[in-house]
């Protein structure tokens, strides 16, 4: 069956460290993968999109990698800050349908 898996356990890190979140998928062949941030009581906000032919994408302190062989995307936040505390969702297209399928999200807590 098709699955998108993100670590359901919260990730707790110290301010200034690099946070690494994982998104694994099975039985999909996505052309791209997206990452979103969601704060409590708010809708998700788009952060980054990476295509299947791109190994890595960067935006300020954010970096996303996409390994279609491992069927995995890693999302890194360098020099993390308490303001980065949120839930991060990965999403991919289920077979070029235009419909985005979301993982359950990983909650990141950055402690000062």
């Amino acid at each position, binding site marked *: 069956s098709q699955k998108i898996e993100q670590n359901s356990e919260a990730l707790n890190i110290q301010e200034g460290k690099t946070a690494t979140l994982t998104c694994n998928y099975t039985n999909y062949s996505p*052309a*791209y993968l*997206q990452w*979103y941030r969601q704060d409590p*009581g*708010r*809708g*998700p*906000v*788009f952060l980054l*999109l990476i295509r299947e032919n791109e190994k890595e994408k960067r935006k300020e302190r954010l970096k996303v990698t996409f390994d279609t062989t491992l069927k995995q995307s890693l999302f890194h936040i360098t020099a993390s800050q308490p303001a980065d505390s949120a839930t991060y*969702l990965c*999403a991919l*297209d289920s077979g*070029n349908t*235009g*419909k*985005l*399928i*979301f*993982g*359950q*999200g990983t909650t990141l807590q950055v402690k000062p």
Partner: protein
Amino acid sequence: DAGITQSPRHKVTETGTPVTLRCHQTENHRYMYWYRQDPGHGLRLIHYSYGVKDTDKGEVSDGYSVSRSKTEDFLLTLESATSSQTSVYFCAISESRTGENSPLHFGNGTRLTVT
């Protein structure tokens, strides 16, 4: 924030009653979506629209219907609400079909409780 307004923001209703949630956008985007978000399941697509009067089902469409009579409005109706439809409902929009450099922009959700 993209110009997306969901109403109401909170609603409590009884089992068996019909409920309509509204999504209004000011971005003139062609595509609109309804998702529900539940603990343990994440965001799941209910229905989406690719133009006025053009809609299609998502993965959890049973018990829901939608209508889009104007570009800016997308309505989600629970025909006869059940407790399993207690959830947070998010509307989203995109300029073109998602994936073509067109991410989703979400509203802030409607929290629906069915008692």
